[in-house]
């Protein structure tokens, strides 16, 4: 295998897939490295067509899973079942340390978390890009919404995003395919909120699913509404690297994809003040190989990319590649959640729905947007995701306690219930961090990661407000038995870890510039969640795609101009 390439992409998830596609389509000979095993689209989704009765435990979280993914299930039990656990890493095999609790949810395989993600996609808005500067918090983003808007459009047209156009400044519209339908109970909620509030609304979840026609990739067609997305979709109906960006990169003939390749460091060439390539351990043979390239895209996921930079020490960078600012590993953010509300909805006894919708409803941020929406005791905002559905009847009343009548009852639908979960913004605090522990090494002799991060006063106050508001909204809609809950948030539970190699205008306070280049090593681009300067309150994957596509196209232009 040739060891010299035009470009190296580290990681094959949401960001790495996009980097691979853009760089290959621009004609660059590209090596794509993935630390985990190969997962082929469709062929390797071996549980995709299995029914609950095809699993011994009915597709639940077994004791074996409890032992294997004992950290990840603390907050991700809803996703780690018999049908999906093979996509989540074994926590025993891949240990990490917690100064403070942190759920590090990982998928080590080709496609990364793009196979297991929740597929909710929302644009950041100008409110998000301006907030740090306006409020004097951390540092300013080096870009604004207008810099990213065309790239949001570019990636959305390619991946397919279903949703409803609203024209809200705090939640800019995407390039939408038709939204999935609301249930009767959700329609009622939408109408009640519209008639009782003028500052907030209910809309369809915006999800990366094809709802009409087809999209490029490996035969990507319209969603079949099976809601088995986390097992891998044989229809390619939701966006994943495996069905979409990696096949596009492969089709150019320019991509070499190398699974089982753990990047241990980016090699720095002091003479030329640039990165010359990467050092890789083969995860199966432990063989070490070096690959050279003109540019490197680091897209290994927030924590892994930051680890690789921290491991890449040299005389010039004793604290990690590009870490002149000392910010590398700091400003760790996520979205705080594990709180929300539920209620029962009367009526609609003769109504039901068809298809298993892989999405739900969304309540866009409605606080701290200026004027009467401003709240005095915290900054930033939150949104809600959830659904109103009709669960099964579990038998009520003494004549349905057990026996023939009970048996009949449990075959019928029960009452309509609504359940909503809050997603709040976490501010970038310098002392929320991850760092490497060289005393505890993994089986490849690499240092393990230690997490030390927690939410603070702003987030706690926001949670209080969030719960009060959602409780009021459900009450005002006339729903019964409204119950709010706060199960207590700890870091990582949002699976939106970000910010540990942030973008900024000044190399003294940030790691990356406005095109995601390391300030002092311009041929290294970092475009996953680690680049985030603030977190916003929406699911971030769409932003990573747009940022990656933008950076990759910039990199190609700079290469052509011989600037890299």
């Amino acid at each position, binding site marked *: 295998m040739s060891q010299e390439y035009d470009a190296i992409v580290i990681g094959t998830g949401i960001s790495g897939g996009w980097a691979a596609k853009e760089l290959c389509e621009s004609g660059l000979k590209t090596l794509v490295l993935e630390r985990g095993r190969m997962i082929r689209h469709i062929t390797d989704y071996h549980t995709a067509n299995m029914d609950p009765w095809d699993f011994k435990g009915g597709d639940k979280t077994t004791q074996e899973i409890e032992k294997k993914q004992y950290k990840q299930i603390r907050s991700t039990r809803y996703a780690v079942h018999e049908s999906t656990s093979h996509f989540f890493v074994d926590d025993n095999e891949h240990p990490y340390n917690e100064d403070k609790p942190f759920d590090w949810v990982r998928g080590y395989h080709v496609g990364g978390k793009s196979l297991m993600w929740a597929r909710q996609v929302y644009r950041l808005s100008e409110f998000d890009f301006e907030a740090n500067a306006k409020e004097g918090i951390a540092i300013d983003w080096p870009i604004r919404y207008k810099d990213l808007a065309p790239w949001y459009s570019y990636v959305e047209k390619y991946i397919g995003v279903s949703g409803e156009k609203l024209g809200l400044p705090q939640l800019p519209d995407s390039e939408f395919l038709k939204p999935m*339908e609301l249930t009767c109970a959700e*329609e009622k909620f939408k109408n009640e909120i519209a008639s009782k509030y003028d500052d907030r609304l209910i809309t369809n979840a915006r999800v990366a699913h094809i709802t009409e026609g087809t999209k490029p990739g490996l035969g990507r067609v319209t969603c*079949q*509404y099976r809601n088995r997305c986390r097992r891998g979709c044989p229809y390619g109906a939701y966006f994943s690297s495996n069905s979409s960006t990696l096949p596009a990169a492969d089709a150019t003939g320019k991509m070499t994809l190398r699974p089982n390749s753990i990047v241990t460091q980016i090699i720095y060439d002091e003479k030329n003040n640039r990165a010359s390539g990467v050092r890789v351990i083969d995860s199966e043979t432990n063989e070490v190989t070096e690959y050279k390239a003109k540019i490197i895209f680091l897209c290994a996921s927030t924590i892994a990319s930051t680890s690789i930079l921290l491991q890449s020490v040299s005389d010039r960078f004793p604290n990690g590649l590009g870490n002149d600012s000392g910010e590398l590993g700091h400003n760790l953010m996520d979205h705080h959640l594990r709180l929300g509300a539920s209620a029962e909805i009367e009526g609609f006894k*003769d*109504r*039901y729905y068809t*298809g298993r919708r892989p999405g739900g409803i969304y309540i866009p941020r409605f606080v701290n947007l200026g004027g009467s929406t401003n709240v005095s005791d915290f900054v930033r905002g939150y949104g809600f995701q959830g659904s109103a559905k009709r669960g099964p009847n579990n038998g009520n009343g003494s004549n349905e*306690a*057990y026996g023939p009548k009970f048996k009949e009852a449990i075959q019928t639908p029960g009452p309509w219930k609504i359940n909503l979960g809050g997603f709040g913004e976490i501010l970038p605090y310098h002392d929320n961090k991850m760092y490497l522990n060289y005393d505890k090494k993994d089986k490849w002799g690499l240092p393990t990661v230690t997490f030390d991060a927690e939410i603070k006063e702003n987030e706690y106050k926001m949670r209080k407000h969030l719960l009060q508001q959602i409780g009021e909204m459900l009450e005002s809609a006339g729903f019964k038995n409204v119950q709010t809950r706060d199960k207590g948030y700890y870091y990582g539970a949002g699976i939106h870890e970000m910010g540990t190699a942030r973008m900024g205008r000044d190399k003294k306070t940030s790691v990356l510039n406005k095109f995601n280049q390391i300030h002092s090593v311009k041929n290294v681009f970092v475009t996953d969640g680690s680049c985030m300067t603030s977190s916003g309150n929406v699911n971030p994957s769409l932003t990573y795609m747009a940022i990656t596509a933008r950076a990759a196209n910039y990199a190609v232009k700079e290469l052509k101009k011989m600037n890299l």
Partner: protein
Amino acid sequence: MDRRKALKTIGYGSGAITLTPAVVGLFHSCQNNSSDFFPEYFNKNQFFIVSQLMELIIPETEIPGAINLKLPEFLDGYISIIFSEERKKKILIGLESFIEVSLFDSEKSNPNKLTNEDLDFQLSKYLKADLKKKNSWKKQESGYQKALHNKNKSTKLPKEALAYGFANQLRSLSITAFRTNEYIGENILAYAPIPGEQRGCVDLMETTGGKIWSL
């Protein structure tokens, strides 16, 4: 003799259950002599009682009952791979308490002698109890669990409360087993492995004939 064949031969079904002790004994001997199923979690006697209870909860109607659907077999495997050691221990204590109270109430000494009437009486006592009684059992049970948690070994077992907890849990596990059953999922409930379309608000009767979706 095959227990399932025996069930069919004697026409065990059509709703109300009035089995004589002799018939229960027949099942028991069938199971002991010729069943090729070896429970992973329950012992043979426990499995037998659990099977009878599940059949009372989900009896044969025009749709097969728990035993014909092999729901007890599913439950045995389910508990063995899903339940933690602590939950496993708890359900056994519940079952043993249930049996003990059943023996006491029926003035019998051997669990093998418990008839379907005896078991039906017990289920009715627990599952059809008024709310006040249920809440009092729940309180006793949680008090016991707390004491156990605090390693207070002298705590006396509130047997009836634990038996209630078991009956309630078995009812809910029977629902899980029923809805996770291939025959029920594919033939009795509304089955749509590949719906192909999504509509948010449709007429229940027109769409599924009043049944829930199985997936």
